[in-house]
């Protein structure tokens, strides 16, 4: 059932996100030409138009992240907490499956947004002379890697970083969902109370983060980074997993026991 939920989640969100990706890439191509033509003494109206394209490009790069975030929030509200919830919450699926389908799809679209924005930046600024420099840098990196004695450790660090980013993203997603699930459990002022929940949870979680940083600072005073990497990683990952678990339980409990669709 999770697979079907994910499939439909991609369909429902993809129809809004994919056109945005296309728009970012098109504006990036236009910006590439605009960058090249700006210094060529064009008439003022054409110059203004080119500046507008460049402006749209930069807004597009930042806006892509905001747009994806807004889609994630709106989709959760519309599909679970509003009238569509009558259908979503009566599908023969558990709340866990519904929740995980939203989390997984949000993470995939967030990662895709990073890639598309990166690609847009490359399209706009790419120069053929870079190919040589990039190949040279890649060669240098390969040499550096081969000269390292403990290659397994470096690979381990790399994968640890990826795991941390994924867990952090899931936790952030659940943070938003938990606040909405709390706010929409009330009869009135649902959006306002979701915001209030976000602030209240943020205050509590900043204390958790403060304790984490304090612990890391003490630990790093005693152990060098290369030795204590996995200890640092375990503390940071553990903190994120703890936060994520708390947000997950809050969301699940509120959807199961407090949700009252109008």
């Amino acid at each position, binding site marked *: 059932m999770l697979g079907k939920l994910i499939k439909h989640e991609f369909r429902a969100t993809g129809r809004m996100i994919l056109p945005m990706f296309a728009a970012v890439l098109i504006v990036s191509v236009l910006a590439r030409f605009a960058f090249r033509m700006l210094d060529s003494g064009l008439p003022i109206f054409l110059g203004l138009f080119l500046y507008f394209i460049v402006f749209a490009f930069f807004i597009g790069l930042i806006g892509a992240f905001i747009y994806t975030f807004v889609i994630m929030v709106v989709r959760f509200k519309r599909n679970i907490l509003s009238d*569509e919830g009558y259908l979503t919450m009566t599908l023969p699926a558990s709340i866990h499956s519904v929740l995980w389908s939203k989390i997984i799809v949000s993470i995939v679209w967030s990662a895709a947004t990073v890639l598309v924005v990166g690609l847009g930046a490359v399209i706009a600024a790419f120069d053929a002379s870079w190919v040589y420099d990039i190949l040279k840098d890649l060669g240098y990196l390969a040499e550096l890697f081969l000269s390292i004695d403990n290659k397994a450790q470096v690979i381990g660090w790399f994968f640890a970083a990826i795991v941390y980013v994924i867990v952090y993203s899931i936790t952030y997603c659940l943070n938003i969902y938990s606040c909405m699930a709390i706010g929409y459990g009330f009869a009135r002022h649902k959006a306002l109370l979701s915001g209030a929940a976000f602030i209240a949870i943020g205050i509590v979680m900043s204390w958790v983060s403060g304790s984490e940083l304090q612990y890391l600072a003490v630990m790093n005073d005693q152990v060098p980074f290369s030795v204590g990497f996995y200890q640092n990683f375990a503390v940071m990952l553990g903190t994120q997993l703890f936060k994520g678990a708390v947000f997950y339980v809050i969301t699940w409990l509120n959807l199961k026991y407090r949700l009252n669709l109008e």
Partner: protein
Amino acid sequence: MPILEARSLTKRYGSTPALSNVSFAVEPGRIVGLLGPNGSGKTTLIKLANGLLQPTGGEILIDGEKPGARSKSLISYLPERINVPLWMSAAELIKFYDDFFADFDPARAQEMLRNLGIGEKMRIKEMSKGTREKVQLILAMSRRAKLYMLDEPIGGVDPATRDYILATIISNYDPSASVIISTHLIADVESVLDDALFISRGEIVLYDSVDHIRESRGKSVDGVFREVFRC
């Protein structure tokens, strides 16, 4: 085993009671009218059966189990609100239902859409309110469910559509399945009901077969309803 059973079922919203110690059982193969004025607890009862609300006390069982993923596969629920995604077309909704509900019959849904002259490619947001309600009813009645729970299926439609909806309900449900129709428009549904369950202020005031109600009281169910719920 009853397909739907409530045991001392209680639901409160804060300090406001919506259902108080309600007990009843619906056997398979019955068409039951859940009858009561606005705010009597009909929708709360249906939401509890569908797992959209949790009881404050007591329990509600569907085919002997508490509401969960399995019970949701047994119930075909028609809420009083438009619950389908507005951006989808009727054809996309048929695929959606077919994907999630093993008992969904897409051919039956397509035939009903054709009979009503509703284009499959038309998006829900392009349809009138009445047409949207018809599409929802078609989707709900195209399942071969064990229990149909229809919340105010005829509330907002014209008399001709009401007749069509009731005919659709009667002609499309499996005789071994049960149908619960929540409404306050008694006269329109009386002819299709086997049993009537009167609910007032969260309490059951009458639950009997329609034939017995008429015999014992010498009135139609509509007449009894007007008597019981006289303002």
